[in-house]
C-alpha cells in the first residue's frame, strides 16, 4: 500500500510547485500596487515625478511627507479622518445593529407580512446603490439634508445584505428551544435578544460589522454628491479632490500627499482585516451557501 503510494506522492509534490508558482504570480499582481504605494510614500514630490516608480528616491522623505500631510491646508486631512470615523462608527455601527435585530426578527418570529418583508429586502440587494444615489440626493436636497453628515449616514444605515447574513446565521445559531425556555421563565423579547441571542449571534454580528465598516470606509459616490463643504468630506472624497487639484491648469501638485494619504487611508482597514480573519472568512462562507 505505502509502496504503491510513493510515486504518486512525488508527482503530487511536483504539481504543488507549479501551482504554487502560479499563485505566487497572482500574489505579485495583488500586492504590486501596495508595494508601489509603500515605496512612493517615501519620496518627495520632486522624486515622485522624476525617479523610477518602483525604486526609491534620492532622499527618504516618509516623515516629512507625513508631517506635510497632517499640516497641509490647516490639517484638513485630520478633519477628513475624523469625519470618516464618524461615518463608520455611526453608519456601520448603526447598520449592523439594525440589520442584526431585523435578521433575528425574521429568523425567529412568525408575524404577518414576514414573507413580503423578506422578499422586498432580498430584491433590494439587486438594486444598484449608485442608481439610487442621484434620486436620494434630490430627495435629501428637497428636505434640506444635503451637506450634513446625515446625508451620508442615513443611507449607510440600511444593509439588506447584512440582514440576509444575520438571518441565515440566526436560523441555526439561536435554537428555538432556548428562546421558548426563556419565555417560560418570563423574560421579555428584548431581554431575550440582548442577554441570550446577541451572544449566540456574536460571530455573525462581527462579520456584518466588518463588511459594513469596509463599505462606509470606502464610500465615495454618495458623499461626493451629498457634500459640498470640504469640512464634511470623508478621506476618499478628500483624496480624490487633492488628486484633481494636482493636475490641470491651475495645478497645485501635491501628489506626494495623495500617495501618503492613500497609505494612511488603507492602513486601518487592512489591519482590521488581518486581525479579524476568522470572522470575515466564516461570514463569506455563510453568504456563499445560499
Amino acid at each position, binding site marked *: 500500500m505505502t509502496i504503491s503510494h510513493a510515486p504518486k506522492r512525488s508527482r503530487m*509534490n511536483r*504539481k*504543488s510547485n507549479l*501551482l*504554487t508558482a502560479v*499563485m505566487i504570480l*497572482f*500574489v505579485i499582481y*495583488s*500586492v504590486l*500596487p*501596495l508595494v*508601489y*504605494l509603500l515605496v*512612493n510614500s517615501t519620496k518627495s514630490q520632486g522624486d515622485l515625478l522624476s525617479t523610477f*516608480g518602483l525604486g526609491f528616491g534620492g532622499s527618504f522623505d516618509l516623515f516629512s511627507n507625513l508631517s506635510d500631510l497632517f499640516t497641509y491646508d490647516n490639517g484638513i486631512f485630520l478633519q477628513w479622518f475624523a469625519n470618516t470615523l464618524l461615518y463608520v462608527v455611526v453608519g456601520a455601527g448603526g447598520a449592523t445593529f439594525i440589520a442584526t*435585530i*431585523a435578521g433575528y*426578527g*425574521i429568523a*425567529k*418570529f*412568525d*408575524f404577518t*407580512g414576514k414573507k413580503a*418583508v423578506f422578499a422586498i*429586502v432580498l*430584491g*433590494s440587494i*439587486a*438594486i*444598484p446603490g*449608485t*442608481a*439610487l444615489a442621484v*434620486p*436620494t440626493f*434630490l*430627495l435629501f436636497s428637497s428636505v434640506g439634508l444635503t451637506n450634513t453628515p446625515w446625508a451620508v449616514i442615513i443611507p449607510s*444605515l*440600511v444593509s439588506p445584505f447584512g440582514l440576509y447574513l444575520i438571518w441565515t446565521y440566526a436560523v441555526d445559531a439561536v435554537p428555538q428551544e432556548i428562546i421558548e425556555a426563556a*419565555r417560560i421563565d418570563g423574560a421579555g*423579547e428584548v431581554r431575550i435578544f440582548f442577554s441570550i441571542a446577541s451572544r449566540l449571534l456574536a460571530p455573525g454580528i462581527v462579520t456584518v460589522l466588518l463588511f459594513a465598516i469596509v463599505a462606509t470606509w470606502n464610500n*465615495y459616490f454618495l458623499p461626493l*454628491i451629498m457634500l459640498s463643504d470640504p469640512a464634511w468630506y470623508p*478621506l476618499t472624497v478628500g*483624496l*480624490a479632490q487633492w*488628486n484633481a487639484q494636482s*493636475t490641470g491648469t491651475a495645478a497645485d501638485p501635491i501628489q506626494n500627499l*495623495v*500617495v501618503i494619504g*492613500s497609505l494612511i487611508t*488603507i492602513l486601518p*482597514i*487592512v489591519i482590521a482585516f488581518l486581525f479579524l480573519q476568522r470572522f470575515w*472568512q466564516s461570514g*463569506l*462562507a455563510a453568504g456563499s*451557501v445560499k
Partner: protein
Amino acid sequence: MATTTLTRPRRRIRLAGWQFVAPFMILFLGAIVAPVIYAVYLSLFRDQLVGGNAFVGLANYVTLLGDEKFWSSLGRVTLFLVIQVPVMLVLGLVAALALDSVRMRWIPFFRIALFLPYAVPGVVAALIWGFMYGSEFGLAGSVNSLLGSDVIEPLSPQWILVAIANIATWQFAGYNMLIFYSALRTVPGELYEAAAIDGASPLRIILSIKLPALRGAIVIAVVFSIIGSFQLFNEPNLLKVLAPNAISSFFTPNLYAYTLSFAGQQYNYSATIAIVMGVLTGVIAYIVQLRGTRSEQR
C-alpha cells in the same frame, strides 16, 4: 379561558417580531423606497423654458431611447461586463481551486494576500493604478523611457477601458476567490474519498464534484459583478482627471447621470437614466439568477 392564555402571548410574540424588524423597514422605506418613487416622479416631469416644471409623461424616456450618448455609455459598460467579469471570475475560480487542492503550500498566506486588494477603497485603488498608469511620471512612463518608445499607454483612448477593467479585476478577483473557496470548503470529505476509490482524476473531481458545488456561489458572483459593471463610476471618474481625452462625461451611464445632475442641472433626465439602469440591472440579475437556479434543479 384556555384560548386567551394561548393567544395572548402568541400575539405578544407576533408584535415583538415586528418591533425587531421595524427600524430596518422604516429606514428601508426612507432611504431606498422613497428615492425610487421620487425618481419615478421626477422622470415624468421636465423643466421647460415656457411653463416651467411640467408633466411630460414618458417624454424623457422617449428622449433617452434616441440619445446616442446614453447608448454609447451602455455599450461601453456592456463590453466591460462581457470581458472583465469572465476574466475576473475565472481568475478567482482558478485560485480557489488551487487553494482547495491539497497540493498547495502556504494556503493561509495566499488567502490573505489575494484578498487584501478588496480592503483597499475603490478610490485609493483607482488613484494608485492611475499613478502607475501615468505616462509622464508613473510606472508606465518609467517602462516606456526604459524601452525608448511609448509602448504602454494605459490612459490612451484605445486602452482606457482595459486599464479600468484591470483595476476592477485587481480589486475583486481575490474577493471572488474567497467566496468560491468558502463554498468549496463545505463539500463533504466523503465525496472526495468516494471519488478517490473510484480512481477519479483531479480534473474529473473538479468537473464532477467541485464545479457543481460552486454553482450557487458562481451565480451570486455573476449577479454582483453585473450590478458592479453597470454601476461603474469611481474608476472612470477618478481617471478622468489623468485622461481627460480618453474619458468623456458620458463614459458610463452613471457618469452621464452624474454629469447631467451636477453640471447640467437636468435632474429629471438624470432620474430617467437612473431608473432605466436600475430596471435593466434588476432584470438581467434576475434572469441570471433564474437560469442559474433552474439548471441546478436539472
